[in-house]
């Protein structure tokens, strides 16, 4: 399939994003590479450990393509409790008038929110060498940095997610779900977001060589989202709710304290409510650079 002009622009912008993130990382600016690119995952940092995840996510609809840059800083309060702060680093491309309602990765917050979270790994078992079964819960509070998201004034929000999973030297899986509730802002309110996520990963035998050899995993991820209607001036916005189911591959590469994750989701099914003014998504792509201090 030939790459059209839009594809070349996207490639150029992704390359620019990679360069920006590499520069940010090299300059010491502080870069979720421990799991899937989009889905919820369970691992927490060790006590006193810091991490930085710098990401760019592109969302393409029938309108155009928009890019969102976000930074996530993690800190291990103790081995089963992690504090997370995610902030927007900016966006590029044209604004989506009918931007898909989602989170920029289930653990990285939405759109241009500043989000603070606690990730608590409340259940953990290590039955064998290289093997772990665990479950975590994440609670977040978020504040927007923009007045409106698409056509709706956006207020503060809370988010709750729960995830369970299995990690080993060969395979991984995580199943989770979450809910984000937005509060009213001047008679406007973004509709609540519900989601389910699933990820399965395989570490090919060639990458099962011991530390500190490079470590790569291939994921298949799935994300199902349901968004409620927005409210504008106290009235429901009919062009604002829907259901989506997206599936796609991602890869995660780890080398010592560095990680890089890249993935893409394609909509398998979309049911957008309203009067036909919402644009269907074409894909979501994400790139994350991670560093563990």
């Amino acid at each position, binding site marked *: 399939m030939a790459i059209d002009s839009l594809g070349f622009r996207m490639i150029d912008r992704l390359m620019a994003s990679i360069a920006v993130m590499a520069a940010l990382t090299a300059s010491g600016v502080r870069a979720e590479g421990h799991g899937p690119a989009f889905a919820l995952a369970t691992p927490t940092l060790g006590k006193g450990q810091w991490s930085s995840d710098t990401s760019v996510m592109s969302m393409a609809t029938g309108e155009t393509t928009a890019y969102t840059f976000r930074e996530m800083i993690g800190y291990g309060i103790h*081995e089963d409790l992690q504090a997370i702060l995610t902030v927007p680093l900016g966006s590029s491309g044209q604004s989506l008038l009918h931007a898909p309602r989602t989170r920029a990765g289930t653990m990285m917050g939405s759109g241009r929110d500043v989000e603070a979270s606690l990730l608590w790994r409340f259940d953990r078992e290590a039955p064998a060498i290289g*093997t772990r079964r665990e479950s975590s819960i994440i609670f977040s509070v978020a504040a927007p940095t923009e007045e409106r998201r698409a056509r709706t004034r956006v207020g503060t929000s809370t988010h709750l997610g729960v995830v369970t999973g299995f990690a080993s030297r060969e395979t991984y899986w995580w199943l989770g779900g979450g809910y984000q509730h937005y509060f009213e802002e001047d008679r406007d309110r973004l509709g609540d977001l519900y989601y389910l996520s699933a990820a399965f990963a395989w570490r090919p035998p060639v990458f099962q060589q011991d*530390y500190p050899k490079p470590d790569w995993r291939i994921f298949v991820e799935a994300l199902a989202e349901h968004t409620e209607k927005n409210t504008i001036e106290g009235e429901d916005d009919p062009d604002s709710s829907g259901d989506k189911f997206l599936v796609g591959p991602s890869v995660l590469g780890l080398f010592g304290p560095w990680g890089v994750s890249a993935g893409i989701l394609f909509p398998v099914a979309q049911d957008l409510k309203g009067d036909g003014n919402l644009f269907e998504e074409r894909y979501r792509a994400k790139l994350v650079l991670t560093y563990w201090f």
Partner: protein
Amino acid sequence: MIARFRFSNQKHDAAVLILGFALANAAAAAGLSEVKQTVFGMDCAPCAHGVEKGLSKIDGVKDVSVSLNDGYALVRLEPDNAVTLEQIRLVIRENGFTPKDAAVVVSGTLTRADDQLVLVSGANTSRQFSLVASPDAQSAWRQLQALPQSAMVEIEARAGESDTTRLSVLTVKRP
């Protein structure tokens, strides 16, 4: 005669000093020299990196190597270190993983208390390990039992998952 006597006394004092210094250093040098700690739950590079970094920060650690596939952290220690097995296991727990049995190389002074063999390790006599026979290393146990009280020894032993002061003797490296 007085001069020769004084010189002899000086030589005697010097010899005592040298012996005392050697003994003191021997006691100070005694202790853990190597710990191969089995770890469950480490699945990926950042896991190993965190454990490696955390263990390297312990004062007295010379070098650390971590294996994901074989599930262990190998810690080699400086002479005169004051590192304990508890410290090593705490670092592993604080990284979110589970320490299991450990194979250790430890030296110290052999003593007997209530028919039990005890290894007093390190300059601090409160660091003591009670020694027991390992079912698959009976000859090492007999060798140890045959040594005199207060013998300086270096042994290879196993510490159970919940044991930090009880060692199953595997080999006697140096009587």
